[in-house]
């Protein structure tokens, strides 16, 4: 390990290896210095040794090392004391933590003193090991891991004898009924997990748009209004007249009609982007000629790849880009995939106008979001 502390080790100290070879360091007799010394051709001494091993350590250098180690330990002590003192006496001043500045300050102080304390202690122990410990390297035998023949044979005998004595080999009826009894018991925990969640059924096939449209139509309207994500303001055609703009919308009434703890879940599926594509570039898809309002189109914001919000819209090219995995869709052409890992276009929401407001006239005609086995 810690060979990273070479600097503290003091390369000048003679090492065990050298000592045992009677100081047989390679000395050049002839003039030019050998390049071999610089190149790693000569084996590096792999044993990062306590420097003192087997040596009569120089008393003065040991004293010096001892003082360095003790100083580091004192630094660690002082630093832990500062940690505690800061925590008790200073971090809670003026009524304790409040906000970013104090959090940052206390983080620097507590973390800084803690780190210093650990690092000083670690450095001290390392220098201690490498400059003051006198242990010598030793050799141990490696033993064969495999058991000897005799034990293996004895165990095999005992094992068979046990099986014999228990009768499990002689009584197949017991053996088989035991297995039979164990099998359903093993399955029981799996059955227990059934109530982790509902079955998928048709859940993934529709979104809250369908429910919202139905509710609106019961009230005698053509469809449900689109509200802006965040402000919940219904959107008029005139509010969204600038070609090239893009906004995130949701069906009106999610907050009112859905239980509070389901709002996020419904929005996660219903979230939709509204884009105003300039009329000259817009290519309405076949069968969807009346799904747009003067070039205003709505696509599901849930990427068909793995479900991230396809939220980036490039005004000049009319590309919709999902920032997670860069699936790219063409807003002018039914959100077809231009590039990236997505396989299907973003589903389109049929739009219309009612009383000057943009409305959706039905749910998405296909499941939104990532593909799944039953999707078809």
């Amino acid at each position: 390990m810690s060979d990273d502390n070479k600097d503290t080790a003091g390369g000048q100290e003679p090492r065990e290896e050298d000592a045992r070879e009677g100081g047989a360091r390679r000395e050049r007799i002839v003039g030019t210095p050998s390049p071999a010394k610089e190149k790693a051709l000569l084996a590096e001494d792999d044993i990062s040794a306590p420097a003192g091993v087997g040596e009569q350590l120089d008393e003065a250098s040991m004293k010096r090392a001892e003082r360095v180690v003790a100083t580091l330990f004192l630094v660690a002590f002082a630093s832990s004391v500062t940690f505690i003192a800061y925590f008790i006496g200073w971090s809670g001043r003026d009524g304790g933590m409040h906000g970013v500045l104090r959090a940052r300050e206390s983080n620097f102080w507590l973390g800084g003193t803690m780190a210093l304390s650990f690092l000083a202690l670690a450095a001290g122990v390392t220098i201690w090991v490498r400059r003051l410990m006198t242990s010598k390297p030793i050799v141990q035998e490696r033993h064969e891991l495999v058991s000897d023949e005799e034990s293996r044979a004895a165990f095999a005998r005992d094992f068979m004898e046990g099986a014999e004595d228990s009768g499990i080999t002689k009584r197949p009826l017991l053996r088989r009924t035991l297995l039979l009894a164990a099998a359903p018991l093993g399955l029981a925990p799996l059955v227990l997990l059934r109530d982790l969640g509902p079955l998928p059924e048709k859940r993934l096939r529709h979104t809250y748009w369908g429910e919202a449209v139905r509710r609106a139509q019961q009230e005698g309207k053509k469809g449900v209004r689109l509200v802006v994500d965040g402000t919940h303001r219904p959107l008029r055609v005139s509010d969204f007249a600038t070609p090239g703009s893009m906004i995130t919308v949701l069906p009106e009434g999610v907050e009112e009609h859905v239980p509070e703890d389901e709002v996020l879940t419904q929005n996660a599926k219903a979230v939709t982007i509204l884009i105003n594509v300039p009329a000259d570039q817009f290519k309405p898809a076949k069968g969807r000629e009346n799904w747009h309002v003067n070039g205003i189109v709505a696509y599901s914001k849930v990427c068909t790849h793995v479900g991230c919000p396809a939220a980036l819209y490039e005004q000049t090219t009319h590309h919709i880009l999902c920032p997670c995995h860069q699936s790219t869709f063409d807003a002018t052409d039914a959100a077809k995939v231009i590039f990236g890992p997505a396989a299907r276009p973003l589903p389109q929401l049929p739009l219309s106008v009612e009383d000057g407001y943009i409305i959706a006239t039905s749910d998405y005609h296909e499941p939104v979001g990532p593909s799944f086995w039953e999707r078809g």
Partner: protein
Amino acid sequence: MSDTTAPKAIEGTLGFIDERLGSTTFFRRNVKKVFPDHWSFMLGEIALYSFVILLLTGTFLTLWFQPSMKEVVYDGSYTKLQGVKMSEAYASTLHISFDVRGGLLMRQIHHWAAILFMASILAHMLRVFFTGAYRKPRELNWLIGINMFMIGMLEGLFGYSLPDDLLSGTGLRITQGVLESIPLVGTYGYMFLFGGEFPGQDIIPRLYVLHILLIPGLILGLVTAHMMIMWHQKHTAMPVKNQSEKQVYGYPFYPVFMAKTGAYFLFTFGVTALLGAFAQINPIWLFGPYDPGAISSGSQPDWYMGVLEGALRIMPGWEISAWGHTVSFNVLIPATLPLGIVFGGAMAWPFIEAWITGDKRQHHVNTRPRNAPVRTATGIAAVTFYGLLWLAGANDVLAERFHVSLFATTWFFRVTVILGPIVAFIITKRICLGLQRRDADVIGHGVESGVIMMSPEGGFSERHEAPREEEKIVLLSKENARPEAPARDARGVPAPGAKGPIGHLRSRLSRAWTFDDIPVEEHGHGEHEAIESGSDSQVKH
């Protein structure tokens, strides 16, 4: 040194335990256990100590964290989010960061330690692979290690999903999309994990119990097994002087290794504390609470998930729909294939290698990477494959930084992820063989001394000197390829291992393993006959 009995307090305690457990025999046997030394052996220690740090800081965090998706209105000391609706999980994470003293520090140390944990496991794994330390008898520890890394990925993913901020919610959304793509059972897995549709109310409490109880318990068990097996089998050693298959050389556990490894724990904790204090990580208050309709660009997961992210990004959009069913290869393949190749391959490797080489011996002395060119080249190919996928996980950042088109960047990775490993394999193998050739040269002709000699005829030549003893041992640690046993003996009877198509494959692979091996051997006059170069290597003279 003069005292041979321990002080009373220690003697008394040890005696108390010994009379009840007979523990002194164990202590006696292990107190001077030898630990061979090499800088690379510390990598696993970093992983171990990061795990300890994770347990300590994680326990601290659980004291305040609320694993709940109940919606609350934030009213804490981070003014920018006051009055904002968010989940209790997110609010309590803000509370830990801004209202608990030392809370931010512990959160940041926890996150940094997680990153370090995974990084050091990977580094440790590469060390073990390239030195052949996974060979018999250590295959079990190799398998345990790989499993720990994979479980660690899951643990990390669940951990950074808990705060329920915008970034972590996006990670969960991707997890859900991937889960949904599994044929037949995908939608059921999705409904059962989330307790309904995404995000629902259950996912955070469920991930919480997995993250703080089940998975750490599993890792702790595996770590314990890993350590006990290592202790029992004794650590491998590098092929240097005094190390052999029969003996291990190094400093005793007590006091040297114990003090050094203790210091190493302190270093690890010190460095993570330093990072936690001065290097901001996962500032969830900047991301805001999770909102399924929102996203920030440049969303990147923690580094160890990057390889999956990259695979998802560069996969073309392949999907088939037939007979009312859909299979999304564009999600399934990247989610399973790359990691399946890398980790499945790594798990099978020790057994494949032993099968190819027919080597059933125990190995305690490591191999230098150059001396197993096929293994080293395969390893580098895997590193290249993994590394390119990992980089592809940041293709948007790379495209932006280097002003290249995003599509070009993606195409670059689509091509190189296939070609890169092949090229890496070829280059690495050539480098290994080149290094073998140099070793053979050093042993055969000696080291260049830099001394130019002039012969009586006036010709100049450089004097070569024999390498130092220590170096010779390292160089001669190479086990030269043995002449292959002929597939058929003189009477035309096929060798037992070479029968049938599988036997043919085996002998072909075996040939590929060694055919270009360069023998490193002494031609000299046997000055150093006693050199250990593997128990039954055949040094030709």
